[in-house]
């Protein structure tokens, strides 16, 4: 495809994502939130437009978009429904793990083709009861007997597990392996037995349905990714997750800011805007711009690594720290910006029954810094400071 033609397709896709957001996500966001339900209408629309295979390279049947585009789409969707945008992001993170690290076997490539062809939704079971939230260690082990691999995992959280087609599970490479010696295994949901062990009645991101399960499954040895999980984590999962999450948080922040300005615009028709309110709006705008700049610097540095396949750079301690910093900064900026937007829009934002309500934004915003706790990430970053010049 020529450069111009692919740019046109890119613009068309941007418009499609925005239209789905405006016409499908926005009107249902409140219902998805109050019912704490999976946004199935949104995912039907994503599937119809091939968006679940967005990151799958075109030779394998996908749309072949890059990380920068995924970031842009997550931001767009974050403007309309935080839960839906989060599920979209979580799916794309898993797809990126496969696309970047598969290819050593036909079985791995077949799965990627299948994601694009059948528009499979990928979920993930990384955290485990007893590992203290550390993705880099597992208790659960992949136990191979003949041509079967057995897994049993106590997962405190598997988001949208019941609506996912495939769940990517981390496990120790074998029952003798150390906690860090991990593999990434894909489990077709129809092959998994899932016993619910925890409910999901949270303040925000209610549509992600992040319930806990005891997951047991028996898969073929080909379902175990040939690359160690440690590599997948540092090269793809950590940077992609922090970038795509921050992207949708930026969308949420922009939307909150936009609602606040809309509310003041409406009020300005009746009475002049008080100077303090104008000043607060200017400050809010600064905060949004800073958040965007933080995110964009991360997107650009990771996109450059991907474009040059320069994986060496992801191995630097400073790269991991920088990606963590983006997550911490953007999630805290989100809470700050939603708070500023509430101060601007005032009582209308505080009311659940007003068109300028920011109740859902406020509840969702705190999830960004608490789900994958910032203090835990910061404690890690603090300890790593001595390994920086």
């Amino acid at each position: 495809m020529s450069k111009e033609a692919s740019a046109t397709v890119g613009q068309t896709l941007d418009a499609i994502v925005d239209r789905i957001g405006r016409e499908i996500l926005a009107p249902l966001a409140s219902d998805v939130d109050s019912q704490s339900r999976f946004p199935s209408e949104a995912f039907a629309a994503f599937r119809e437009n091939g968006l679940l295979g967005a990151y799958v390279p075109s030779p394998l049947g996908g749309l072949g978009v890059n990380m920068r585009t995924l970031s842009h789409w997550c931001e767009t969707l974050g403007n309309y429904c935080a839960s839906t945008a989060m599920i979209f992001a979580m799916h794309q993170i898993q797809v990126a793990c496969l696309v970047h690290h598969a290819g050593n076997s036909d079985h791995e490539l077949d799965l990627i083709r299948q994601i694009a062809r059948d528009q499979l939704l990928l979920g993930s079971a990384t955290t485990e009861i007893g590992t203290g939230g550390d993705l880099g260690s597992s208790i659960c082990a992949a136990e191979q007997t003949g041509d079967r691999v057995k897994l049993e995992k106590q997962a405190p959280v598997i988001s949208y597990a019941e609506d996912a087609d495939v769940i990517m599970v981390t496990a120790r490479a074998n029952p003798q392996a150390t906690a860090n010696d991990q593999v990434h295994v894909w489990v077709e949901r129809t092959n998994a037995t899932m016993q619910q062990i925890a409910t999901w009645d949270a303040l925000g991101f209610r549509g992600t349905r992040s319930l806990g399960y005891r997951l047991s499954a028996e898969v073929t040895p080909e379902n175990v990714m040939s690359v160690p999980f440690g590599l997948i984590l540092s090269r793809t999962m950590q940077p992609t997750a922090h970038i795509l999450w921050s992207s949708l948080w930026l969308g949420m922040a922009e939307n909150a800011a936009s609602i606040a300005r809309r509310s003041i615009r409406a009020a300005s028709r009746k009475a002049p805007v008080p100077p303090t309110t104008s000043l607060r709006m200017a400050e809010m705008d600064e905060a949004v711009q800073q958040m965007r700049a933080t995110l964009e610097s991360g997107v650009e540095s990771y996109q450059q690594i991907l474009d040059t396949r320069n994986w060496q750079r992801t191995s630097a301690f400073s790269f991991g720290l920088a990606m963590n910093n983006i997550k911490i900064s953007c999630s805290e900026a989100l809470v700050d910006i939603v708070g500023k937007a509430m101060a601007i829009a005032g009582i209308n934002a505080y009311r659940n029954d007003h068109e300028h309500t920011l109740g859902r934004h406020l509840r969702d915003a705190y999830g960004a810094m608490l789900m994958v706790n910032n203090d835990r990430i910061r404690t890690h970053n603090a300890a790593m400071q001595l390994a920086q010049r």
Partner: protein
Amino acid sequence: MQSRDATTSSIRQVLQDAGNLAVEVDSLTDIDDLYDAGLTSLNTVNLMLAIEDLFGIEFPDEFLNRDTFQSINAIADAVVSLGGGSQKGAVA
């Protein structure tokens, strides 16, 4: 200048003391993956400081990555390339 063997055996001693590995250092070969053996990024910091101390070297920015600490051999390569083949204060 220490021999390569002496360098790797010093590194093994540091690993035993500061690596906090999940397995015995003696059970590892020089090329085994230390992260698979339980080395965490946080323990890498302690390991780095101990190695700098022992060999009287300072790892520059471009060495501060996972690859440098991937195996005993990788650490030895780094130590040697930073001119730390002999232990500080040791009689060679």
